[in-house]
């Protein structure tokens, strides 16, 4: 049975592909965490990323210490980029909202068609904080309609593995 099982992409892929997947899913986890979607972050941090990291570490040919250093640097740079993306989104949304506020009545606002959900936990007896969190969620929801944060966030190109012609063996594996 096991001899006929198809290996997963993680088991077969080349290190460049694996590295780029790590970049991509780290980015996704950071965005989801900023959006307060912890339930979606957990499987990424507990399953997908560890599996990718294990596979990449065993194939990249670097010593363990260098792997750790490269990963640590990646995590902090992706976090910085996401923080910057959210800041840019907030600035742009503020600007757009201010300009729309100056428009004559009847001007259309971009309205996202999605339900509103809190993006952080607020204790039940703290009504004031709940209302603040609702306001934040509404603003962020509006922000996503004006400029989705995944578009506002530019990951530096150098974070990704450089493009190179794969060897015949790598091409076969990929």
């Amino acid at each position, binding site marked *: 049975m096991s001899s006929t099982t198809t290996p997963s992409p993680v088991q077969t892929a080349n290190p460049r592909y694996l590295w780029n997947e790590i970049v991509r899913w780290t980015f996704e986890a950071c965005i989801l965490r900023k959006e307060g979607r912890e339930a979606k972050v957990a499987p990424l941090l507990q399953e997908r990323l560890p599996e990718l990291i294990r596979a990449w570490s065993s194939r990249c040919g670097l010593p363990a210490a260098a792997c750790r250093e490269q990963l640590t640097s990646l995590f902090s740079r992706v976090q910085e980029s996401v923080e910057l993306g959210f800041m840019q989104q907030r600035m742009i949304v503020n600007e757009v909202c201010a300009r729309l506020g100056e428009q004559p009545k009847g001007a259309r606002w971009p309205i996202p068609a999605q339900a509103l959900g809190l993006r952080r*936990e607020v204790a039940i007896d703290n009504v004031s904080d709940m*209302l603040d969190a609702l306001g934040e969620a509404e603003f962020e929801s509006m922000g996503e309609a004006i400029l989705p944060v995944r578009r506002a966030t530019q990951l530096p190109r150098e974070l990704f593995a450089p493009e190179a012609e794969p060897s015949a063996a790598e091409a076969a594996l990929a």
Partner: protein
Amino acid sequence: MKTAINKSASKGGSAREEGRSSATETIYVGLDWGTNTSCLMSAAQASAETTVSLQEKIPTVVGYAAENVLNRVLPGDAKVLFGQEALAHKLYLSIVRPLQGGVIHDLPSARLFAQHLRDRLKAGDREVRAVIGMPASSDLAARENARKAVQGVFDKIIFVPEPFLAALGYRDDARVSEGKYQDPVANSLYIDIGAGSTDVCLVQGHYPTADDQLSEPFAGDAVDQIILDGILAAYPDCGLTPARVRDIKEQHSFVLAKDAATPAVATVMVGGKVKKLDVTDQVGAGCEALLQKVFEMTRELIARADADSVSELLQNIIVTGGGSLIKGFGVALQTKLLEEGFENPRVRVLGENYKDYVARGALKAARQAKDRHWQNLLG
């Protein structure tokens, strides 16, 4: 011109003690603006935390008088009637329901209905601040429509998702410190079955985040449609309207085994003759479909809860909303959960007063909101 808040009205002030309200005192309103029925509660700003000066349930209907109605047929020869009065005179009115699926569907009638609510307050020139419950699934467009409907009616508003308000309203703050009191917001699963959507959310000491709630556009209206389709398939010429189907459902809805002693028999007019139709199977099918949907949503949300919290959570499954009034719903859901393998689940149904909890929660929220939270609707 409406006046600003009376900043001098302080708790324990003489106006409160004497039960009077000054002309400049702000009125707080908690509103559950429901598709079928709205619940309104109000209190003066300076009143004690537990004081509710007005509490009313009003069918959410607006009736426009037909052009040729004879004098003195309608009370005060009114051109527009609301709520129970509109339903009582529906023969002479064109009835409009301003909301559909929990959100504003007809803006002009919604504005008239909102003005009627304000009139019920007898607020005069006093400032009125309203916290209004919205379905958890409502988007910004729905809130924008609701805002337009109450602009110029209320002075300041806040929209809050209904499950938040139900949890807040259901909690008895005076008893929280009692050892025996089971705090309904400590670790509970709320199921709110409205007209347009069913919302299920985890409330574990904090307000539900986006991940703690599920919302499906399958609720009372969908049940009505299933019943109507079933009846029309069996009795094609019965001429039933959606409004009549809703009446039938409200009288006869059930889940679990059919109760042979009380079959659902609907009286309808066919070709000008009164006929009695047995619609037990059709009503049962609609209610069963809702039960199955609620069960699936409940199961999914339990799976999302922290494993350590599940056994306590299963003891506090709370069903609210119009759908909770289906006969046997709580027991049937409990049975399905038990059959699925959940250990000792306990489902509580809030019953007829479910609307009060949202309005009471809204009034609580109004009292605790800071100035920065209120959206100003003047101008």
